[in-house]
């Protein structure tokens, strides 16, 4: 289940113990990527490092989506919401720290006279930081429980999460006094007492993000190799069989959806201090569906794929969209079509020698159970 790159023949020819070869084939690629990311701040300008730090938060976000889409077969089009909720929780902490006991500026402008009750706990880091995981996980858990309990899967799940993205983003835009409205929450000065814009702080944040990314990778790799992970894949491939074997797919799905949302929230929490703003534009329909294209380009169902995809697509975006915004939009449109039609197994699939084939679980004639029950004339 973990990404397996074929080793160069030179390495295979060496008289190495076989277990070392196994370790290398599983871990070589991730270790190479990690080494490159560790070394990056030494080689790049501050501006590029800041950009790469932002991409790394996107990589964590993509990994959280890959966990539920690539392994459990549930495409969420609302992951921007969970990312945003984590980002907002962090922003509330930063804003209160910057305000230094006074009312945050945008609340004052909107005519509030005192801090809303739900803002108050976020002045403490020991509450705010766990909340970046807990709030999105709780929302996903609640929605997931209702949705999975009524056996809503596949596209219906995707469409419902897309509606969630629309609703939460307009809710945040509408509640100007509490969320900063369209502008979001910005203008932080310090984080834990350090100036937030100083290059040193930014480097520390970069490495914190990288460490979180590595930990998330290990967590996902462990999870997927475990019994739980095998159940996820089994559910993706045949949910009814898992149900008939005595497991409860609704519970499994709710747990993994909540976990994935929590990870997305942590990614958002790392995004906010590095970029300096969180706003509803990060949560809407458009950013949420873009996460799916990062995963698809990198390779669905390959842990490293999400990271590679997130960094490459966002790199291309910042390269192209600044100078040629129109071309970027056409390119992105074609990328969505191409990722589905032309290279369904993504970059990692190509590297692993799967060529242009479609992974078996994405093959045609596979329908989510719900559709097969509801639709006439469709065979499973």
């Amino acid at each position, binding site marked *: 289940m973990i990404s397996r790159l074929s080793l160069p023949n030179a390495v295979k020819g060496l008289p190495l113990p076989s277990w070392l070869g196994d370790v290398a084939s599983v871990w070589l690629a991730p270790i190479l990527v990690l080494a490159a990311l560790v070394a990056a701040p030494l080689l790049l300008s501050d501006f590029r490092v800041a950009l790469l730090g932002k991409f790394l938060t996107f990589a964590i976000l993509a990994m959280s989506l890959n966990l539920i889409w690539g392994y459990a077969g549930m495409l969420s089009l609302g992951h921007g919401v969970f990312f945003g909720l984590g980002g907002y929780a962090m922003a509330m902490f930063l804003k209160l720290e910057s305000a230094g006991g006074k009312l945050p500026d945008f609340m004052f402008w909107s005519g509030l006279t005192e801090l809303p009750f739900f803002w108050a706990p976020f002045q403490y880091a020991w509450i705010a930081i766990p909340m970046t995981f807990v709030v999105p996980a709780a929302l996903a858990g609640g929605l997931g429980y209702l949705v999975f309990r009524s056996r809503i899967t596949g*596209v219906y799940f995707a469409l419902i999460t897309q509606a969630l993205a629309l609703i939460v983003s307009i809710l945040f835009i509408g509640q100007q006094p509490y969320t900063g409205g369209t502008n979001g929450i910005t203008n932080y000065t310090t984080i834990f007492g350090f100036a937030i814009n100083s290059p040193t702080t930014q480097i520390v944040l970069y490495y914190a993000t990288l460490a979180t990314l590595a930990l998330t990778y290990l967590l996902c790799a462990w999870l997927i190799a475990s019994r739980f992970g095998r159940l996820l894949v089994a559910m993706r491939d045949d949910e009814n069989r898992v149900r008939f074997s005595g497991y409860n797919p609704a519970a499994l799905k709710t747990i993994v959806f909540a976990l994935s949302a929590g990870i997305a929230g942590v990614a958002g929490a790392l995004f906010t201090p590095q970029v300096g703003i969180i706003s509803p534009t990060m949560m809407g329909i458009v950013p949420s569906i873009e996460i799916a294209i990062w995963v698809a380009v990198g390779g669905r169902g390959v842990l490293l794929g999400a990271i590679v995809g997130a960094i490459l697509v966002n790199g291309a975006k910042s390269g192209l969209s600044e100078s040629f915004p129109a071309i970027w939009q056409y390119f992105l*449109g074609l990328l969505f079509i191409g990722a589905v039609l032309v290279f369904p197994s993504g970059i990692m699939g190509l590297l692993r020698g799967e060529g242009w084939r479609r992974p078996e679980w994405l093959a045609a004639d596979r329908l989510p159970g719900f559709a097969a029950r509801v639709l006439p004339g469709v065979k499973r």
Partner: protein
Amino acid sequence: MEVWASQLFNGLSLSSILLLTALGLALSFGLMNVINLAHGEFIMIGAYTTYALQQVAAHYTGDPQSGITFLIAIPVSFIMAAAAGYLVEVSVIRFLYRRPLDTLLATWGVGLFLQQLARSIFGAPNVQVVAPAWLSGTVSVTSGLLLPMKRIFIIGLVLACLGALYLYMYRSNEGRRMRGVMQNREMASSLGVSTRRVDSFTFALGSGLAGVAGCALTLIGPIGPSLGTFYIVDAFIVVILGGLGQIPGTIMAALIIGMLNTVFEFGTTAVVGKVLVFAMVILFLQWKPAGLMRARGR
């Protein structure tokens, strides 16, 4: 009392536009299991067709409010959107039958492409279509109740489309083939129905209906390249609530959602209204996961 009546009337006209949008989605889902996220862009194509036609007409006649132009724009919008839908079907979607999640992503890509195309041709800012003079007035039902002519026209237009769709589906050979493929694709195919042809025709038909919805939307407000995105999510909620691929269910669901939206908006705000409707749909699906109507099992 009059306030309520006028609110209900607004709800009805909102429902009718939702319905026109959702019908195409329900058709393409029911027939081919395709989730078309580019459907909103066919609305946009219809709207821009109306706009372009009016610009051309105003250039030659000097009268932007010409009533005839708008009447001509309705079928032209249908044809333009249907042609675009046909192209998308034969170039992208036919490779993706029975893979709904993949069609969802690919059609989103098609949508992005079409939006950018509109931006390149017509520019990013919104444009306004001037409503014809004969649609600008109001009709007074009682002394306090004034119904805008535009909204009445939209409801009438949607009813006409529904009637035409009914005739097509239940009174024409082409429609009979379509229902046959919907009910049992293999059997229809083995009886000599060209399912490929039925698929692309149905997709074009659904897209055309979205184009008419776009034409109608120009009466309500300004139009822009991302016009469709506003309506698409609501339309999908309608399709889910109605039961996938079920035309009568879709009609009922559109009425319910349009009305609920209006009622909640009236009681609270537009945003809270949307949140409440979403919550109610999720709760309803707890009770009936297949939506209002479900296909009879065989």
